[in-house]
Structure formats: C-alpha cells, structure tokens
C-alpha cells in the first residue's frame, strides 16, 4: 500500500528536473482503455508544465527535455504523453 501512483512519480521527476512554477498532470488512461497501447498496463498522461528552463527553447527541444526527464518511466509506466511545456509568459507551448 501507499506505493506512489504513476502520476506522483511523474510529478516528482518533473519537479526535481525543472523546478516548475506550474505543473498539472492528468491520468487520461481511462480514455484509452482497450486500445493496443493500454493493454500492457501503461498509461496515457497529459502534462502541463511551466518552467524557466524552457525559456528560449523550441517546442521540439522543450518536449525532448520532458521526454528525457521521464525516460525511465517511459519504459515502464508511461505509454503516451501529451505535453504542453512553456516558459513563464509564453502564450503558446
């Protein structure tokens, strides 16, 4: 019992890596039940993150940073991520 949920594992990785000023994680796995990728028990998650670390980076670079931070979880817990990563003050991710 009290094993950290997948959402908590994602949250703690992103907090350590990016020191975000805003962070929301939603488990959307239920939207995808029955789909091939959900079969192995790995989840779909939506991440919204705002951090100074993303300042000046292209969208591809910001997403790569998030994927890199979660690389281990992508092997075991996470099948798909929807990412919205931006720097404070950016209007679009």
């Amino acid at each position, binding site marked *: 019992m009290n094993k950290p949920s997948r959402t908590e594992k994602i949250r703690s990785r992103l907090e350590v890596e990016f020191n975000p000023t805003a962070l929301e994680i939603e488990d959307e796995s239920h939207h*995808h039940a029955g789909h*091939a990728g959900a079969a192995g028990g790995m989840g779909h998650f939506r991440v919204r993150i705002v951090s100074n670390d993303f300042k000046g980076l292209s*969208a*591809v670079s910001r997403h*790569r940073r998030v994927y890199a931070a979660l690389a281990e979880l992508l092997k075991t817990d996470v099948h*798909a991520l929807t990412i919205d990563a931006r720097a404070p003050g950016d209007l679009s991710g």
Partner: protein
Amino acid sequence: MTAVERIKEQLASNPVLLYMKGTPDFPQCGFSAQTVGALRACKAKFAHINIFEDPEVREALKSYSNWPTFPQLYVNGELVGGCDIAVEMYQSGELKQLLAEVGAVA
C-alpha cells in the same frame, strides 16, 4: 540496408513524411489520427510510414531523432514534432505555412 539507412533514405526522398501507427485512412492510434487530421486540414501532400510494418525502423527512429514516441512528423528531413506540436502549429497557422514553403500544399 540497415534501419538507419532506410530512415535516411525515407527522409531524403519525402519532403513531408509522417511516421505513424497505421495508415492515414486506418490510423491505429488517436495521436496518429489527430496528426493526419491536421495535415489533411492543411491540404498537405505527405508520405507516411506505418511503423508497425517495420519494427527495426520503429526502434531505430527513437534514437535517430532523440524522440521516444509516435507519430513523428518530418519536413525536409527535420523533426517538426509529435501530435501536440503538429496540432498546435495547425491551430496557429504555422503548419500550413511550413508546408507551403516546401511546396507540399495541394
């Protein structure tokens, strides 16, 4: 040919290329379907590779592009992004502009 050689050849011969799960008419993943939808909404001429048909390319592409998920959209051999970036660029008009620049809008 090795998987990386196949990837390089595919990217060199297709100005707009989508690596996806399934095909544009029968996508096998919601994210691939959304990306096809964004391209079609731009009237884009694009090629696709169904990664389920070439597991070696599927694995090799993740490290080649330093991007762990699919779909992956390439324009002139450069990774544009996955579904989130493609859809956002569609909404802002940037996707159509980029496709027009490479002559890939019907």
